[in-house]
């Protein structure tokens, strides 16, 4: 009975309660935490993402007009992280949309602000607007101002947004991504697809990867990478490449670079734009591309591949300022190896109203590298990379417009002004006339055949086939050419006199020409002067020698001979006493081999001869041995590869290049050098103990050396010996020692120091031998080796420094003597003053009682 009652009453009541509970606790709609944003847009496909505060199903409704969203795409699984893929779209077509749930609830959209436009067909030439922001996510007034400047720039539709990393400060957390990134740009992101690269502040990889849907399977063109950290896509006639300079770039045999090469080998797109976070060309005090891994590695590994396949533009951030290079190519080393002559394809400003646009029409090489990390803040740095055309500590973003074969790039300031701009074009070059050189003027005799040596260069337009034509412009007789239609030919002349011959070259549309003068004399008449520049000689720098030339001539055509001495080759300059006389004097600025020429002219014909002078450096400024610093002492465990970085300087004498030799001086086991003949090398040691290694450097005549100690242990001892750097070797009499020591603070953080004299030609006196940085003076000129030892109580490290005290310089002893003499002089002066004062007081009544007393 009770059971039946329960069934009859309680079950319906409980069911009703459960139903009511469900109705009142299930949200009718889920509020938006992240507004809709577009991802991985291609010509036929788009991904729509949004986030709700509570779980719900997903629906995107889209169609050709607001109020006519006639197609739904649903995802029935309940989630807060909504991701709906729409396929089968038409290229270059605008669709309006709304987002919501499968229940029909619309959370956003179906108005004029919610739309997406599919990419134009791959390879097509529609104008494309790209907006690039670097290091934006500060959620500061700076970030907002940069954004608003772009919003207010013009009415152009944004096709592609690139965000260059460090998208959400400080740590790229989920909430930071929402507030500092998605919320800031929500009005744009709902209709312009954003493509991201990871910066070093995206510390939480999961958050970064969850926030974006990137085409790792080539969903938007390009070659599948299998990773969302690096990928490519096509948009119109642009191939975009996103690299990961934070993680993938540093991996051993990284798959990213293999993929990059495969990807670029597969594209025929007109433009290639690459973007990643770490900029390859910056020397700021904060991030230095000479040393910092992510910057250096991408420059060394990615840039050669990109340039090989004709990359046009690279965008990065990381530093919080703006910079961009010239149109450069083939520079992958440190900044001090960059030169405009070797690496700039175009060293101009790239402006149509300036030096001219960067034109890659005929030469596809060269790219501009842009550092655009000031979309959220700027920092004051010391700047200065020689590859950069400009570096500006200004807030801003990059606005890039591409249409057909033209790309316009602007740096838009936060105040709406344009800080920098340049243009790259790929229009075919206009045809230029061939450049012609008909060769040097010559002398000839009637009836004799001479060679005419012309050179012609051309731009290859409109064809690479050129036609040539030699002709006589002027002259008293007839000229017989071997072949008038070749660049190089022969000619003979019927009568004496001066002839002007012309070489003309034509590319079928344009022609260029040059002329050459041939002075022809009668055979058997005037002959050029016969010149003897004298015997070869030896000399010393700065010492004057005599040059004894002799010249004979046939006296024709009657005018006096003129002479001319000149330097043909040699390492320095030559000062002639009188370069216009047969005999003269000469002195030389630097040691080496010089070739001098004496020319003599009879006004029509010229003769010449050369003489070689071997110049050496006089005694007294003799060759010095190379100064060697083998580096700091090191500690390592058995089997580890120890890097040996040495520095060697030399005076350049006697002229031969330096040779190096690493060797083991002492140690309990064997050592294996990577290369004993290199200045810098590696060493691996298998037996524990203390090893002294020596580096010798020879200039061919003299040898310098230095030693370091490498302590090898086979146990993991947290304590490491102090690392000592006794400072650079010096050529100086003064002894201010600039040493440095680093230590791990073990075992108790205390360090003791000890300076000592290892060797030298006299005595060394330290200001305080127990101080890290102290002074030292020397008793005599010569070479001194000083050692600094630092001990942490358990382990010690040491390093040596060589100081060469020159003969003429004051030694410390002399200084001390001089100082003592000066002190004595001052003392004498004070004594004299005292005597005078006492004498004055002696005459003063005030002092009398005292004296009397």
């Amino acid at each position: 009975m009770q059971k039946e009652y329960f069934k009859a009453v309680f079950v319906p009541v409980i069911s009703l309660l459960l139903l009511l509970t469900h109705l009142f606790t299930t949200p009718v709609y889920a509020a938006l935490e992240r507004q809709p944003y577009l991802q991985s847009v291609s010509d036929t496909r788009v991904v729509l993402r949004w986030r709700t505060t509570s779980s719900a199903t997903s629906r995107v409704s889209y169609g050709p007009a607001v109020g006519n969203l006639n197609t739904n795409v649903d995802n029935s699984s309940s989630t807060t992280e909504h991701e709906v893929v729409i396929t089968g779209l038409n290229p270059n077509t605008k669709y309006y949309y709304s987002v919501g749930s499968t229940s029909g609830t619309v959370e956003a959209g179906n108005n004029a602000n919610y739309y997406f436009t599919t990419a134009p067909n791959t390879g097509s030439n529609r104008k494309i607007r790209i907006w690039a922001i670097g290091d934006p996510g500060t959620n500061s007034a700076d970030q907002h101002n940069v954004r608003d400047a772009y919003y207010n720039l013009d009415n152009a539709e944004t096709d592609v947004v690139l965000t260059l990393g460090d998208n959400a400060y400080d740590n790229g957390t989920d909430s930071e991504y929402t507030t500092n990134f998605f919320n800031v740009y929500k009005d744009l992101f709902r209709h312009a697809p954003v493509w991201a690269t990871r910066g070093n502040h995206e510390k939480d990889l999961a958050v970064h990867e969850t926030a974006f849907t990137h085409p790792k399977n080539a969903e938007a063109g390009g070659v599948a990478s299998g990773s969302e950290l690096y990928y490519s896509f096509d948009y119109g006639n642009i191939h975009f490449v996103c690299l990961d300079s934070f993680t993938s770039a540093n991996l051993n045999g990284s798959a990213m670079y293999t993929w990059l090469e495969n990807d670029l080998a597969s594209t025929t797109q007109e433009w290639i734009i690459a973007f990643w976070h770490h900029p390859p060309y910056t020397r700021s005090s904060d991030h230095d591309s000479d040393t910092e891994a992510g910057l250096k590695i991408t420059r060394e590994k990615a840039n050669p591949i990109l340039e090989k396949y004709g990359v046009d533009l690279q965008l990065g951030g990381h530093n919080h300022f703006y910079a961009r290079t010239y149109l450069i190519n083939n520079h992958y080393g440190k900044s001090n190896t960059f030169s405009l002559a070797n690496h700039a394809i175009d060293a101009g400003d790239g402006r149509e109203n300036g030096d001219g646009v960067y034109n890659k029409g005929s030469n596809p090489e060269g790219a501009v590298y842009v550092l655009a990390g000031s979309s959220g803040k700027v920092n004051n740095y010391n700047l200065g990379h020689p590859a950069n055309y400009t570096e500006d500590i200004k807030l801003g973003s990059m606005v890039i417009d591409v249409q057909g074969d033209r790309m316009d790039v602007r740096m838009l300031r936060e105040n709406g002004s344009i800080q920098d701009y340049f243009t790259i074009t790929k229009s075919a070059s206009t045809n230029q006339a061939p450049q012609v050189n008909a060769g040097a003027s010559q002398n000839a005799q009637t009836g004799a055949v001479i060679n005419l040596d012309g050179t012609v260069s051309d731009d290859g337009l409109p064809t690479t086939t050129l036609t040539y034509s030699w002709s006589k412009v002027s002259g008293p007789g007839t000229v017989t050419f071997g072949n008038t239609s070749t660049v190089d030919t022969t000619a003979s002349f019927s009568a004496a006199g001066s002839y002007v011959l012309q070489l003309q070259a034509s590319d079928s549309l344009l022609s260029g020409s040059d002329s050459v003068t041939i002075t022809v004399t009668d055979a058997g008449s005037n002959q050029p002067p016969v010149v003897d520049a004298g015997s070869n000689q030896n000399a010393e720098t700065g010492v004057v020698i005599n040059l004894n030339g002799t010249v004979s001539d046939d006296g024709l055509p009657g005018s006096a001979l003129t002479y001319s001495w000149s330097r043909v080759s040699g390492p320095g300059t030559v000062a002639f006493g009188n370069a216009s006389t047969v005999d003269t004097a000469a002195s030389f600025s630097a040691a080496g081999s010089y070739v001098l020429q004496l020319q003599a002219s009879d006004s029509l014909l010229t003769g010449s001869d050369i003489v070689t002078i071997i110049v050496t450096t006089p005694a007294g400024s003799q060759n010095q041995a190379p100064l060697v610093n083998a580096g700091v002492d090191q500690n390592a465990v058995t089997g580890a590869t120890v890097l040996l970085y040495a520095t060697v300087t030399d005076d350049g004498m006697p002229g031969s290049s330096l040779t190096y030799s690493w060797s083991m001086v002492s140690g309990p086991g064997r050592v294996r050098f990577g290369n004993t003949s290199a200045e810098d090398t590696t060493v691996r040691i298998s037996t524990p103990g203390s090893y002294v290694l020596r580096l010798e450097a020879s200039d061919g005549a003299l040898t310098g050396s230095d030693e370091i100690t490498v302590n090898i242990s086979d146990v993991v001892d947290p304590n490491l010996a102090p690392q000592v750097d006794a400072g650079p070797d010096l050529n100086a009499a003064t002894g201010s020692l600039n040493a440095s020591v680093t230590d791990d603070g073990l075992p108790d953080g205390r360090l003791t120091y000890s300076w000592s004299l290892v060797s030298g030609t006299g005595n060394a006196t330290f200001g305080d031998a127990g101080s890290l940085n102290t002074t030292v003076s020397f008793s005599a000129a010569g070479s001194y080796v000083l050692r600094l030892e630092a001990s942490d109580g358990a382990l010690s490290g040491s390093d040596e420094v060589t100081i060469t005290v020159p003969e003429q310089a004051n030694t410390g002893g002399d200084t001390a003597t001089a100082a003592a003499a000066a002190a004595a002089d001052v003392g004498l002066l004070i004594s004299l003053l005292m005597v005078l004062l006492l004498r004055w007081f002696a005459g003063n009544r005030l002092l009398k009682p005292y004296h009397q007393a």
Partner: protein
Amino acid sequence: MSSYRFLKPATATAFCAILVSVRKVRLFTFFLALSCSLPVLAHGPGDEQIRMITAQLEEQGDSPQLYAKRARIYQDNQHWQEAMSDFNKAAELDPDNVDYDLDRASLCYDAGEYQRSLDFVDLYLLRREGTAEALLIKAQSYLALEDYQRAAKSYESALSDAAGQFSPEYYVEFADTLTKTGDKRKALQVLQQGINQIGAISVFQVKAAELEVDLKLYDSALKRIDQILGQSQRKDIWLSRRADILASAGRDKEAQQVYQQAYSALQQLPQRLQNLQVSRELETALLARIDSQ
């Protein structure tokens, strides 16, 4: 699942990129755990962050977390001694936290002290046996020491521990290591495993084709190149690769035909692409091949 964490910007964050769990929940948990121990990577001058942490230490007293945090900044800035000092201090204050052993292993790896890195990894593995992250550092350290056999074993162990998908880098590193040991068949298997897990991406296909040519499995290598060829806008480079494989197989007539096709494809490229150095070099090579017959 194991709670993976990582220690340094290069290998540690690389590891983040490598290990990707199949299931979203695992993925999220994994990276959440990972992120908790990710180094604070200096973007502003490291000195500023170090000063802040030092001030915190002065205010709050010794904290192993703060020492570890400061150590990672030092590590990022390649100040190995200072980083080791701080990790040592953290380990001293929290001796039960085995993670500092892994921290120090990673630090030693970054500093180029690979043997020492192995010592710390082993110390860690004594208490956390089979952790993929540690095994990966171990593999990379052996790789740096050119001990390819042990490196390969460590990679294999890491793979068996993670039990999920790995990103392409992992398979490539593992396959390269196996190739160095001379076991090309196993290297091929690893790449095939990658293809099964991630897809037939070109990185795997090209490497696998190279191995197959070495192993005289020409038809299989040709299929892989054909798959890339079919997806590529630009054909000449991949046709040339195909012809090379045919030539290696001794199928000279077919090779000649494909070299001709490659040359024709090259000639049909836009002039700007033909002017690229890579194109000019390919043209020279193709003409040499064609003329040699």
